[in-house]
């Protein structure tokens, strides 16, 4: 077995509360330099909040009530706002999920990228603009000289997303948190962005936390995958193992809802029955129990810990030995 290098980023028992409920509950994972960790899971399960916490950007309603987020030996969660500002962009940076909400509508995109560069590297405006121009080439935006002087509303959705990516990458962060970075991109440009990320990982040892719903993207770039459900870690595994042999019922059902190429058009797609519980409904048991085909009384009354299944594969399920039944349901 390969020995993994010591982690660059460690999320350890992170808990985030909103209105008294643990919307992120005891979440742990590590990312080594040069590795890509994909974070997947049902819409609303806490992926974005987890990533905001890493950058000290939680919304006012949300409070970190437990756990640590270590960048090597620094606990990010203990930084003051001033220290965070120094770290953001250079040590750790984020590509936000909704570009239009995070770009300044009143400032040209060139200025926004250049300012991000100058915040850490200083230097002249001209130098920063040249850096920004190069960045636009890297993310595949044609005619960069013209684009730099445009405002966000003059760019398409996918271009705005690539501006966000440029801002996040311009200072060469050691850890990149990418929240749905390619949702607005067509597959050819998406492939180009994924290649760019692979290059950062291979050449600079950047550690990436990639939040995505696209299982194809996960299959393409991730080394490890963490699957969240209703604020908790459901399963975590090396990418091949996760796809080949998921060990949590939620993961198996999630993988089964990807439209298959032989699926009859417009025929009902497999979904997971029921609805994800809201934080006020979180019970004491497994949060997936009321939608799970394997659930028993124990699942209702007792939350499963994250069991170690060997080879870096862990699953929070009482019935890992019955996974064959799920695969039958899913097929």
């Amino acid at each position, binding site marked *: 077995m390969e020995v993994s290098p010591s982690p660059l980023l460690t999320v350890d028992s992170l808990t985030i509360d909103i209105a008294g409920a643990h919307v992120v509950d005891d979440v742990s994972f590590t990312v080594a330099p040069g590795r890509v960790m994909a974070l997947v899971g049902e819409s609303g399960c806490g992926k974005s909040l987890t990533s905001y916490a890493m950058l000290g950007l939680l919304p006012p309603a949300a409070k970190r009530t437990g756990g640590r987020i270590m960048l090597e030996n620094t606990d990010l969660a203990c930084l003051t706002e001033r220290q965070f500002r120094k770290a953001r962009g250079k040590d750790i940076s984020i590509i936000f999920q909704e570009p239009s*909400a995070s770009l300044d509508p009143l400032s040209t995109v060139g200025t926004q990228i250049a300012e991000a560069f100058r915040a850490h590297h200083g230097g002249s405006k001209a130098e920063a603009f040249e850096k920004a121009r190069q960045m636009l080439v890297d993310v595949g935006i044609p005619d960069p000289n013209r684009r730099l002087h445009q405002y966000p509303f003059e760019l398409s*959705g996918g271009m705005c997303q690539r501006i966000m990516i440029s801002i996040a990458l311009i200072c060469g962060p050691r850890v990149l948190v990418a929240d749905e970075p390619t949702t607005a991109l067509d597959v050819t440009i998406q492939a180009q962005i994924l290649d760019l990320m692979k290059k950062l990982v291979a050449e600079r040892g950047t550690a990436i936390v990639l939040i995505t719903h696209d299982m194809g993207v996960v299959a393409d770039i991730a080394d490890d995958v963490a699957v969240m459900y209703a604020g908790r870690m459901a399963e975590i595994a090396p990418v091949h193992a996760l796809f080949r042999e998921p060990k949590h019922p939620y993961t198996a*059902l999630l993988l089964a809802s990807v439209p298959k190429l032989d699926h009859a058009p417009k025929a009902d797609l497999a979904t997971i029955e029921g609805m994800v519980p809201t934080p006020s409904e979180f019970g004491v048991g497994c949060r997936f129990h009321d939608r799970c085909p394997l659930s028993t009384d124990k699942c209702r009354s007792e939350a499963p810990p994250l069991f170690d299944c060997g080879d870096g594969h862990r699953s929070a399920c009482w019935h890992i030995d019955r996974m064959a039944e799920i695969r039958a349901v899913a097929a």
Partner: protein
Amino acid sequence: MSEQKNVLEIRDVAVHFGGNGGLFGKSGAVVKAVNGVTLDIVRGETVALVGESGCGKSTLSNTIVGLQQPVAGSVKIGGEEVVGADRKKLNDIRRKVQMIFQDPALSLDPRSTIGATIGEPLIVRGVAKGKALKERVGALLAQVGLRPEHADRYPHQFSGGQRQRVVIARALALEPDLVICDEPVSALDVSVRAQILNLLVALQKRTGVSYLFVSHDLGVVRHICDRVVVMYLGRFVEIADRDTFFANPKHPYTKALMSAVPEADPEVQRSKERLILGGELPSPANIPSGCAFHTRCPLATEICGRERPELTVRDDGARVACHHA
């Protein structure tokens, strides 16, 4: 074919930006975002619009619902002209067409509860009020996998995918004839996405609604669409029925697109050959002569830089704009 069967008729629509010396037209370059496109959508049909980022999909979508004025061409919804329509007329037309915007953050009012947002069209059109309104809003929320009690929350209290579902619920509230969906499900995880796609299909079976479905996800396109339109730098380059399209893609750009679809299997995905497009990405402010794709096309010859290929019908009914495909 009778006139009424077409929910949407687009004729030679062109939309340009800049070049008029306006506030932001400093560079003076005219961006030909949409450059003469023609398309009909019949009742109950779903047409996919796919193409490279920045090729003009959102601009065309905005033009169809009257949010963007074209420099040429005509857009008819249910036989009524959208281009140049006055406010009152547009209002009438908008009863029949709804739009799901690409970015939910831009289309929800941060100061309104989502119940108010979803209920608004129902109130404005006098469809429901009071208790009935509350029930209707609750039912719409449940349809998109949210909960009736979420109605009192504000947009910022939701995750990205939850916000997108609010936008979808609002668009479906009035049971429109046509919904323009600009990347409606890309923010959703696969199981919730499956639920929304099932909902869109069920609604179509029940009410005969048509969809223009802008998407980058060819798996979703294959599942939900009857016909596929591929756009490149403001023009349509391939139009075909779904089965024909997926069995036998013809335009070299379409082929590149297909080969770049990542597969949800690490083994397969990492050993796959990709068709990588060489050449400079052209700018929409300076569209290459002849075929706009010739600068990146593996099949390009001398004629491609000289003569723009028109869409021509092939044996299997597909229409393709290429000298060599």
